[in-house]
C-alpha cells in the first residue's frame, strides 16, 4: 500500500511586506496602477519531503516561524505550493480551528449541522451522526439551548465532538489537543487512536514535545523552513531540545566570563536583569523574612535592544534546585509593555509560607514564545526565611491545633 500522504520537495515563498506593495486601491491608483515588482520573496518552506503511511502518526516540531503552519496549510490544500507537490490518497481533513462556523444564537444541535457541513460532511451525513456527536460532547441536556449560553469548555467540547466525527482518512491536527478538561482530552486522544487503528494517516503539529515524543511514530523537525531532522519521534524530539539549549548557550556573549560572574547564567542578554531586590513587609530591601510574611521581588530590567513582546519568570527554589514556586507573566496573563528603556517590575507575593531555611531566587527573561531565554539568571538573589530550622517538609502553612477531651470537672483543674 502506498503512502496516504506524499510530500515531495515542497516549497512555498512569500513576499516580504516591505510597505512598497500597494495594499489599498487608493495607493495603487496613486502609484500609477503599477505592479511594484521590487518585493522580495523569502522561502517559508523549501525542499521538504516526507511520506505518511496509513495508520501512521507524524509529528511536526520546530519553533514558531519555522514553517509548520505553512506546511499545514499546503497539506490542507488551502494554499498553493510554489515548488514540489503533495499527493494525497484521500481528502484531507483538519482538526485546526474548532468552532469555526459556530453561531452563538443557534442551538447546540443546529451548530452541529453547520459545523459538520463546514468541516466537509454532507448535511445528510451530519444528520446521521448527530446523536453520536451529542453523546460524545456530553451535552445532551443543553443541546437545544443557544450556544451563547454555553461555557467556553462546553463550546470546545461541541467543536471537538463534531470534528472527530468526520471519519477522516488523512487528518491534520494543530495544537488543539489541549482543550477541555483532562477526562475529555483523554477521550479525544482515544478517538484519535481509533482513527489511527482504522488506517487514518495523521499529522500532528504541536509545541508539546512530550506529546509528540510519546504519541507519534515519527517526527520531522523544521527549522527556517527546511527539514532539519526526521526519524522516530523520541530521537527527533531529543535532537530538537538539544539544539534549542545549545543555541541559547551559543548566543550568550562570553560564556566563560558569564559563568565566573554568575554561575549558570545564560542568554545573550538582548534584555537583561540589571538588579533584583527582595523587599520585606516594611517595604525595605531585606535578605530575610519571617515565615508567612509578604514579600516583593523587585526586578530592574534593561534593554540592549528593543523587544516588543517578552515574558518574565521568577522562581523560588531550595538550594538543592527543587523549585517550590514558579511564577511567570505568561501564565498569569500579564502582557508586558514593549521594552524600550529601563523597566521596574514588582512581583508581590501575599505570603510566602515556606519553612524556615535558605532559598534562592531564579529569574528569567524570555522570548514571547518561550523558545529562547534572553537572560536566564539562576540564584539571582537569596532569601532566608527566619525561624527554627530542621523541620521536614516544604511549607509552613498557618495552622492551629485543637484538642478536645471529655471535659474534666473544672474544680479539680483549678489550683
Amino acid at each position: 500500500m502506498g503512502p496516504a500522504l506524499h510530500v515531495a520537495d515542497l516549497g512555498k515563498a512569500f513576499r516580504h511586506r516591505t510597505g512598497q506593495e500597494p495594499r489599498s486601491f487608493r495607493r495603487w491608483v496613486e502609484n500609477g496602477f503599477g505592479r511594484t515588482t521590487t518585493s522580495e520573496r523569502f522561502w517559508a518552506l523549501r525542499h521538504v519531503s516526507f511520506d505518511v503511511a496509513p495508520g501512521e502518526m507524524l509529528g511536526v516540531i520546530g519553533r514558531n516561524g519555522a514553517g509548520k503552519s505553512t506546511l499545514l496549510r499546503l497539506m490542507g490544500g488551502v494554499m498553493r505550493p510554489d515548488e514540489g507537490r503533495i499527493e494525497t490518497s484521500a481528502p484531507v481533513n483538519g482538526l485546526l480551528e474548532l468552532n469555526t462556523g459556530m453561531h452563538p444564537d443557534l442551538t447546540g444541535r443546529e451548530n452541529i449541522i453547520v459545523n459538520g457541513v463546514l468541516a466537509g460532511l454532507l448535511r445528510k451525513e451530519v444528520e446521521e451522526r448527530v446523536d453520536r456527536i451529542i453523546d460524545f460532547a456530553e451535552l445532551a441536556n443543553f443541546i437545544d439551548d443557544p450556544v451563547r449560553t454555553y461555557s467556553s469548555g462546553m463550546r470546545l467540547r461541541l467543536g471537538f465532538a463534531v470534528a472527530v466525527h468526520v471519519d477522516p482518512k488523512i487528518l491534520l491536527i494543530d495544537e488543539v489537543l489541549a482543550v477541555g478538561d483532562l477526562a475529555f482530552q483523554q477521550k479525544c486522544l482515544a478517538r484519535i487512536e481509533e482513527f489511527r487503528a482504522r488506517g487514518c494517516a495523521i499529522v500532528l503539529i504541536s509545541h508539546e514535545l512530550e506529546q509528540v515524543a510519546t504519541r507519534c511514530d515519527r517526527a520531522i523537525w523544521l527549522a527556517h523552513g527546511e527539514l532539519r531532522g526526521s526519524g522516530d519521534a523520541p530521537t527527533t524530539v531529543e535532537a530538537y531540545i538539544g539544539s534549542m539549549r545549545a543555541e541559547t548557550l551559543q548566543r550568550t556573549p562570553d560564556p566563560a566570563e558569564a559563568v565566573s560572574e554568575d554561575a549558570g547564567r545564560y542568554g545573550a542578554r538582548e534584555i537583561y536583569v540589571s538588579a533584583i531586590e527582595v523587599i520585606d513587609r516594611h517595604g525595605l530591601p531585606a535578605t530575610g523574612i519571617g515565615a508567612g510574611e509578604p514579600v516583593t521581588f523587585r526586578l530592574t530590567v534593561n534593554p540592549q535592544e528593543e523587544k516588543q513582546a517578552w515574558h518574565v519568570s521568577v522562581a523560588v527554589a531550595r538550594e538543592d534546585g527543587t523549585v517550590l514556586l514558579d511564577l511567570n507573566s505568561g501564565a498569569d496573563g500579564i502582557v508586558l509593555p514593549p521594552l524600550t528603556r529601563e523597566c521596574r517590575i514588582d512581583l508581590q507575593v501575599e505570603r510566602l509560607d515556606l519553612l524556615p531555611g535558605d532559598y534562592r531566587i531564579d529569574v528569567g527573561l524570555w522570548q514571547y514564545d518561550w523558545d529562547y531565554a534572553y537572560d536566564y539568571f539562576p540564584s539571582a538573589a537569596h532569601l532566608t526565611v527566619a525561624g527554627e530550622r530542621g523541620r521536614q517538609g516544604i511549607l509552613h502553612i498557618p495552622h492551629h491545633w485543637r484538642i478536645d477531651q471529655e471535659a474534666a470537672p473544672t474544680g479539680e483543674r483549678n489550683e
Partner: protein
Amino acid sequence: MSMPSSRDLMHLRDVIRVLVWRDQRGRYTTTLMGVVWAVAAPVLFLMTFYFLFTFVMPLAIPNYASHVFVALVAWTWFQATVSESVECIVGNQSLISQPRFPVAALPVASAMSNLLTLCLTLPVLLLVLLAEGSQAGLSLVTLPIIMLCQLVVILAIAFLVAALNVRFRDLGYIVPILLQLFMFATPIFYDYAAVPDRARAVLAVNPLVTLVESYRTVLIQGGWPDWTPLVLVFLGGSVALALTWRYFRAASADFLEEV
C-alpha cells in the same frame, strides 16, 4: 484544477444552505421578526420617497408606491449582497483556512440569503401592488427569468469585489460610495422614460435599469418585458460572471497569504 466530483457539488450545495440558514437564523430569532426587519428598511425608504415625490415635489408618476417599491426590493437584493461580499473573504479567515471548504460558497450564500430576505418582503409588495390596482397577469411567468438575470449580474459583481478586497483593503470604503452612485443611476424613485435621451445613453450601461424596468412592466403594467435589453443583460452578465469567477478562482489560491 480537477473536475469537481458529484459529492463535491452536493457538498457545495449543503455548504451554501447552512451558510444561508445560519445567516438568516442569526438575523432573526423568529420568522415574524424576520419579516418585520426585512421589510422595515425598504418600507421606510418607500415612505420617504412617497412623501417627497407625491407631496413635496410631485413627479406625477402613476402608481407611485408600486413604482418605487418594486425597484427598491430589487435594488436591496443587489445592494445588500454586493456590500456583504466585500467583507466575505477577509471576514471569514477561519473558514477559508479550513481544508475542503469551498470558498466560492461565501458570495453565493450571501446572494441567496438576501434573495430569501427579498422573499420575506413579498407580502408587503403584494399589498402595495393590490392597493394601487396592479394589472399583473400571465406575464408573471417571466418573473423567474428576470430574477435569474439579476442573480447573474449580482454574482458577477460579488465575486469581483470579494476577491479584490483581499488585495485592496480600502474597497470597504469605496464600494458603498459606488453603490450610492449606482442607486441614483437606477430609476428607483424617478421615471426612466422622463430621463433626457443623452442621459439615458449613459444610464443604459447600468444593467439594473433594464432589470428594474422589466420588473415594473411585469408586476405593475402586466405587460411582457422588453426582451432585447434583457437578453443583452443576461449575456453581458454571463460573460462578466465567467471572467470574475475566473479571477476569483485564481485569486483564491492566495487568499490566505493576503488575509
